[in-house]
C-alpha cells in the first residue's frame, strides 16, 4: 500500500476510495450478518427435569386400579386402589428455557414406562399429560422460561406387592423422555 502511494497518486486515490467503500460495505455487511446471530435469537431451546414424577403412596387390593397424577399435583385413585396420605407424591416438573416469548411444541412419551421394585414386581405408567398440554402449546415468558408439569397414570395390578417402585430399579424401563422444539 505504501508502494502504491509513492508511484501512482491516481491509482492510490482510487484505491483509497475503494477501500473506504469496502470498509463501509464491510461494516454494513457485518452489521446485517450479526443481527440475526445475537445470543438472544440463536439460543437453543433447553429443557431440564427438576422434580421426579412421584405417584406417592397407595394401598393395593384384590381389584386392579389406578393412581392418576395430574400436572397440577391432584392425585386421584381408580378401581381397587386407595391413596395413602403419608405420601401425596407430585407431578414431574421440567423447566424449559430459550429466547423470550418464543413458542414451542411439547412431545410426551407415546408408550408406557415400566417401574419395578427391583425384583419381579412391576407396574406400568401410561396416559401422559402435561401443562401446557402436548402439542404446539408452549410459550416462553418474557425472560425465556416456562415451567412444564407432567403427570401420568399408574396402573396397579390386583394384589400388587407392597414396595418402593422406580423406573431406575432393575428391570425398569428407565426414565421417560419429554421433547420440546421451536415450531
Amino acid at each position, binding site marked *: 500500500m505504501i508502494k502504491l502511494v509513492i508511484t501512482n497518486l491516481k491509482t492510490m486515490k482510487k484505491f483509497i476510495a*475503494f477501500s473506504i*467503500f469496502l470498509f463501509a*460495505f*464491510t461494516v454494513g*455487511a457485518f452489521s*446485517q*450478518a*450479526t443481527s*440475526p*446471530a445475537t445470543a438472544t*435469537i*440463536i439460543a*437453543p*431451546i*433447553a*429443557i*431440564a*427435569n427438576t*422434580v*421426579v*414424577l*412421584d*405417584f*406417592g*403412596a*397407595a*394401598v*393395593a387390593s384384590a381389584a386392579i386400579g389406578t*393412581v392418576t397424577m395430574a400436572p397440577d399435583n391432584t392425585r386421584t385413585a381408580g378401581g381397587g386402589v386407595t391413596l*395413602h396420605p*403419608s*405420601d401425596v*407424591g407430585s407431578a*414431574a416438573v*421440567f423447566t*424449559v428455557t430459550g429466547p423470550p416469548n418464543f413458542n414451542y411444541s411439547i412431545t410426551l412419551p407415546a408408550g408406557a*414406562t415400566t*417401574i419395578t421394585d427391583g425384583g419381579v414386581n412391576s*407396574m406400568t*405408567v401410561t396416559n401422559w399429560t402435561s401443562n401446557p398440554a402436548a402439542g404446539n402449546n408452549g410459550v416462553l415468558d418474557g425472560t425465556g422460561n416456562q415451567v412444564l408439569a*407432567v403427570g*401420568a397414570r*399408574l396402573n*396397579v395390578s390386583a394384589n*400388587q*406387592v407392597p*414396595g*418402593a*417402585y*422406580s*423406573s431406575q430399579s432393575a428391570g425398569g424401563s*428407565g*426414565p*421417560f*423422555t*419429554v*421433547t*420440546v*422444539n*421451536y415450531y
Partner: protein
Amino acid sequence: MARINKILISLVLLFFIVVSRTYAQATLPASTTGHVIAEIIPVFSASETAQLNFGRFAPGPQGGKLILTPQSSISVLGSVYKGTGSYNAASFYVSGDVDAAYSISLPSSPVILTHTTSAKTMVIEEWFSDPPPGIGAGMLQNGFQVINVGATLNVGTMNDNPVGIYTGSYTITFDFN
C-alpha cells in the same frame, strides 16, 4: 470492478451462511428425561402381642379397684389384696407405612368380665394408653409402633366375685385415616 463483485458475492454468501446456520440451530429440539417412582404400602395392620392381665388378687369384704397403667405398674384401692404372679398391660403392635399417623380409640363404655363358671361379673373402665388416644396420636416412625393399654378393674366383694377366672373382650380401634 470484477474484484469488488467477487468480494461482494463472498460477503453475501457469508451473510447467507451465517443466517442459515442461525436457523439450523434454532430448530434443534431439546429432550430430557425424568424418572418415575411410586410406593405400594402394606395394608395397615394391628395385632395384640400381650393380653391385658391384672394378675392374681383376692377380693376383700368391701371390694375395691386394681389400677393397671400402660407402663404395667399396678396399684390397689379399697379392700383388694394383690397376690403374687405376673400382671401386665396389654400391648398392640401396629404396622404400616413409615411415618404414617393414625388415631387410637379406646373402649368408651365399661367392659364386662364374666366368671367362667358362674354369671358373676367384674367391670373394667377408665382405659389408658401410651401413646394416649386421639386423632393422629399414633405415629409409625419406623413403620411400626407398640401401643400399651392399661385400665381400672372394679372388684366387688367376696360374694360378688368368687374365686375363679374372669374373661371378656374389648375393642381398640386404630384408624389409619
